[in-house]
């Protein structure tokens, strides 16, 4: 391992991801913690935890069978259903909320849980699907001979459980940190407030009154909850529970469902219809005029107007996302490799994931504090800061993917390179990286997608005004539904494009999981 390279990668992580957060934490004083956990805020926190548990329930209920059916069985159309099932991850949760609230007369907590569950089920499905694909054919055949499909499932469920747990942890993290969905859907019926509301409201007040320490302190319980939720996922990964592939692994054949084939297909189709087709269809309908009367001509006009008026913003969003993803991947590779190979690996894990545990507002204001100085004014005003913020905010994801991939890489491949005389950088670039190519592209795709749909942290800096997501949320207030819908569809299309291209031409499966 090259110490120079690791130090450089750590420097990037520190500057982009940790310094803004640490600067804000430095503003804490003991007095700020005094009223932190009164009865009201504890109740909010408790409700948030319940929300997370509810979301996990939905995500697992849908994700496990969907992941199993589309990855391991002969259900028709699995090659199309599987990638379509990932689309909800690409859509900003608010779009899902808008769709579901227009179709269903469900409100408050139930709708919030449903929307977030639908938005996060792909995470569980991806983990479950991969775990199932990594079960050796011979083990499965042994169970099949004994008792058919039921015996296979009985044997395999415990094997995939760690992966499902890992996915569930991530779904929980997404759920408890989401602000927009509870805020949007919670207006009907009993108001369902969550802890993210408290953070937002405190920042609104305490920025005005300059009691910043209290606003930072308010974030701490959610930061703690998020880190605690990630603990099982990291522990499972470290124990190798997610990597079941041996050196003589035999890939299992698709399981024949027999008379269950049609019901299974209908189940998968329903999931995709509800979670992907419905929101995209609704956006298309809005783009075509929606309640004012749908027409293809209107849709055409909407897209033409969108491209004309938002070309620059779309271009800026793509540029920032590409730049951020391209910077993240090698940094994540270096850190991920060190996390697996170095003695201080566990420590690296924790500091690498810290930026995703803090609220976007805290991260955004921390960047203002860090970069708004006369010497760095130019940088502060420019797109470079947006890219850096994306890097800081999302580096953890390709880091987890890379370190997971390195964990499953035979260490002897690197040792052979070392004995051959290759230095650590050469080994990383010419042995490790090529072996992990699907994971590196997967990490790149993850950052690209997240950056395309991100607004919460970057909204606080100038250049974010020039992004497509800003334009959407700026316009959505004003009944520019056709324009907003058309722009949203363009963003979704651009966000899925890299993954789609890889699937079509890459030749190998994209790895986006740790």
């Amino acid at each position, binding site marked *: 391992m090259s110490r120079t390279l690791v130090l450089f990668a750590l420097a990037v992580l520190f500057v982009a991801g940790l310094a803004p957060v640490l600067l804000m934490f430095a503003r804490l004083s003991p007095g700020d913690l005094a009223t932190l956990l009164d009865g009201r805020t504890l109740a909010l926190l408790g409700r948030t935890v319940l929300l997370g548990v509810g979301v996990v329930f939905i995500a697992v209920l849908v994700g496990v069978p969907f992941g199993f059916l589309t990855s391991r069985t002969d259900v028709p159309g699995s090659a199309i259903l599987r990638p379509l099932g990932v689309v909800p991850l690409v859509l900003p949760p608010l779009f899902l909320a808008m769709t579901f609230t227009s179709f269903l007369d469900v409100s408050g907590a139930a709708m919030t849980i449903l929307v977030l569950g639908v938005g996060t089920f792909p995470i569980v499905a991806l983990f479950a699907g991969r775990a199932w694909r990594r079960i050796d054919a011979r083990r499965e055949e042994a169970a099949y001979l004994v008792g058919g499909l039921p015996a296979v499932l009985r044997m395999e469920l415990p094997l995939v459980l760690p992966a499902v747990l890992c996915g569930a942890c991530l779904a929980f993290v997404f759920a408890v940190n989401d602000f927009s969905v509870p*805020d949007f859907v*919670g207006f009907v019926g009993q108001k369902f407030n969550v802890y993210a509301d408290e953070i937002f*409201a405190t920042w609104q007040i305490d920025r*005005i009154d300059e009691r910043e320490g209290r606003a930072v302190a308010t974030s701490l319980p959610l930061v703690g909850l998020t880190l605690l939720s990630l603990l099982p996922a990291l522990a499972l990964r470290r124990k190798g529970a997610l990597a079941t592939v041996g050196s003589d692994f035999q890939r299992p054949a698709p399981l024949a469902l027999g008379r269950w084939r049609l019901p299974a297909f209908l189940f998968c189709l329903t999931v995709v219809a509800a979670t992907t087709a419905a929101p995209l269809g609704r956006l298309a309908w809005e783009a075509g005029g929606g309640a004012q009367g749908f027409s293809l001509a209107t849709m055409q006009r909407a897209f033409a107007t969108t491209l004309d008026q938002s070309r620059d913003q779309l271009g800026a969003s793509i540029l920032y996302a590409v730049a951020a993803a*391209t910077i993240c991947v090698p940094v994540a590779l270096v850190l991920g490799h060190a996390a697996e190979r170095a003695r201080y690996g566990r420590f690296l894990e924790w500091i690498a994931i810290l930026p995703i545990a803090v609220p976007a507002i805290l991260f955004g204001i921390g960047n203002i504090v860090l970069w708004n100085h006369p010497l760095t*004014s130019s940088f502060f005003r420019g797109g470079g800061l947006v890219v850096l913020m994306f890097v800081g905010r999302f580096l953890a994801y390709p880091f987890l993917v890379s370190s997971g991939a390195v964990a499953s890489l035979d260490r002897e491949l690197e040792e052979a390179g070392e004995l051959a005389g290759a230095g650590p950088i050469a080994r990383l670039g010419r042995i490790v990286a090529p072996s992990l190519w699907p994971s590196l592209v997967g990490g790149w795709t993850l950052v690209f997608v997240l950056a395309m749909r991100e607004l919460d942290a970057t909204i606080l800096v100038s250049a974010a005004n020039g992004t497509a997501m800003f334009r959407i949320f700026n316009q959505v*207030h004003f009944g520019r539904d056709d324009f907003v819908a058309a722009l949203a569809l363009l963003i979704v299309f651009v966000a899925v494009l890299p993954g789609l291209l890889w699937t079509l031409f890459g030749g190998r499966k994209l790895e986006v999981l740790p």
Partner: protein
Amino acid sequence: MSTLRIPRPFYAPLALLAVLPLGACGGEPDVVVYCALDSVFSEELLRDFERETGLRVSAQFDVEASKTVGLVGRILAEQRNPQCDVFWNNEIAHTVRLAQAGLLLAYDSPSARDIPELFRAVDRTWTGFAARARVLIVNTDLANPAEITSMWDLLDPKWAGKVTIAKPLTGTTLTHLAALYDVLGESEAQRYVAGIAKAGAEGTVRLASSNGQVMRLVGEGKMAWGWTDTDDVNVAVEKGYPVVAVYPDQATIGTLLIPNTIAILKRAPHPQNAKLFVDWILQKKIEERLAASRSAQIPVRADVPRPKYVLGPDRFKTMQVSYVSLGKQIAFRADKFREMFLR
């Protein structure tokens, strides 16, 4: 010792990292405006200013209130090295708060000489113009506007489950409910606000995330009526929703007028250009344009031409409120409302 020979896969990322610090797009602007008035309404005006003056404007906008700490938060965070020249707020309370924090420059714009004193800071640190009124948006298919005359109707059991208001944690709803404490007195205002909080918790009053959402709910017929601003009502009418605006409490406290406010930051990077911008935006013709626009802003000057549907203070009773007092208490009220509404 291994030399630092960089493998090819690292070239692009290293190159990108190297050019990041150069990332200021397009050079230094001539004036930086933080504009809370939605870009749909304000962007065209800013482009016109550029055309007329030849100055380059860098405009920073906000999004729907639920998404951000707001431009005020940015101004405060940037205090040590201000980026903003002019703060164009679409309400007044937070502008007053910034003035009270000593962050605004006193500037007596010649364009503001005919603006009523009510809408001007005594020390000339801010000026109000082009206002919105807090009104009730009523779906005429679901309710008879003539039956809704008072703010207290919101808590009338006969409307249970059919009325809505945005959470008073940000924006004009916060300003509105905070103003009631000055106008009605502490106990009456508290009774009203606490009543809304209780009703919101019970679900008899729907708490929306923003005025825009209130507009949609009522316009789409999911709610009968609710509190919003006049610009939202106008947007709803243009969308073809069956809605009208009701100006409640005309016999008592009247309707709250919330003006846009314009102010120059004390340590603005381009103070002279900032003054030019303020002079330009406070012209009578700009108020006229804002009145005629989709936002249907109400001119604070009585003699500004306006469309028929833009009612001026001559057509409805305005709430007599001290904006300065409002600015002083806004943070305190926001804190209290947070405790009441986030449970």
